[in-house]
């Protein structure tokens, strides 16, 4: 490295005040116009922008910066809340539509189930007056597997065999 390059690297440190010229460096600087010119440039650069720095009010800057960032955070939070509300609303709507669909397609079965339940209540009110055989017949009816009985349409009377018809008649007569 040439003496000029070595001195160039040292100039910043001396300008910072973290180093001093050695005797040899000072001698070179005094005798080298190129290095003196560079040194002047560095000293000039050190003074550039000093007024801008002096005029900068760090307290004001930090207040404005923090206020801006807080505003952004608030906006982001509202966007998030809005998003969640939107998702919740969409989910609620989807559930409503899905429920309505199910009622629409399975409405008849639903009403049958209600009627069935009401019918059961009526029958239950009469249970005390039934004899053993009649109660047994009802229990047999209740033992029908779910896949056969529940959820589907009640069997039409024409589908029942004689024994079953007899049981139904007996249960209705009390």
């Amino acid at each position, binding site marked *: 490295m040439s003496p000029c390059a070595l001195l160039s690297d040292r100039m910043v440190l001396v300008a910072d005040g973290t180093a001093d010229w050695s005797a040899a460096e000072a001698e070179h600087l005094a005798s080298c116009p190129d290095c003196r010119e560079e040194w002047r440039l560095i000293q000039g*650069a050190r003074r*550039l922008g000093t*007024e801008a720095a002096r005029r900068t009010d760090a*307290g004001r800057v*930090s207040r404005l910066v923090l206020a801006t960032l807080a505003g952004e955070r608030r906006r982001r939070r509202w966007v998030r809340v809005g998003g969640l509300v939107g998702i919740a609303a969409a989910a609620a709507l989807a559930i409503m539509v899905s429920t309505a669909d199910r009622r629409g397609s399975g409405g008849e079965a639903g009403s049958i189930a209600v009627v069935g339940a009401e019918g059961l209540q009526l029958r239950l009110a009469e249970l005390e007056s039934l004899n053993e055989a009649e109660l047994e017949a009802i229990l047999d009816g209740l033992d029908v597997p779910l896949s056969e009985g529940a959820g589907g349409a009640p069997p039409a009377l024409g589908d029942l065999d004689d024994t079953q018809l007899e049981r139904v008649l007996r249960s209705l007569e009390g």
Partner: protein
Amino acid sequence: MRAPAAELTAPLTDAALVLAYRGGDERGATELVARHAAVVARFLAGAGGDPGEIDDLVQETFIRAFRALDGWRGESAFRSWLFSIASNLLKDQFRRRGGRTMLTLMDDDLHADDDPAATLEAREAERQLQAGLGTLPRLQREVFLLRAQQGMDYDAIATTLDTTPGAARVHYHHAVKRLKELMA
């Protein structure tokens, strides 16, 4: 065991302040601004930031920095990172102005001296320097300022301006050569 008193009173590092701010303590941000705002303003003014916009540019530098704190992993000094953001802001401003660099010497950049002749000479030299900086390519100008004005080494300059230390050294020497010619 108690920490020595010197440790207890030692100022927090930038990294510790960043951590404090990220943990919700706004005093971390306030202290970081207090430490670096003036230096960033000096750099922006020297690098051609519009004098009327330096305050806004300083604010914007910190806003962008704090927004992107998750991206700062501490490999570079916080101040270098700020210079890097400030440099990008200048680039944007330069584009908005249609490629014109605005470099003006504020009258108060040179304070009254005991020797009026020396003050006048120094003022003239700085006016020339500022004008000369305005003619340099952006990278040369910023490398020169980070080196000559801010005292950064080439490794840090390279990290700040996303180049290599060798390239930064070359840019610096080109800038010095050109400025010498302009000021001769």
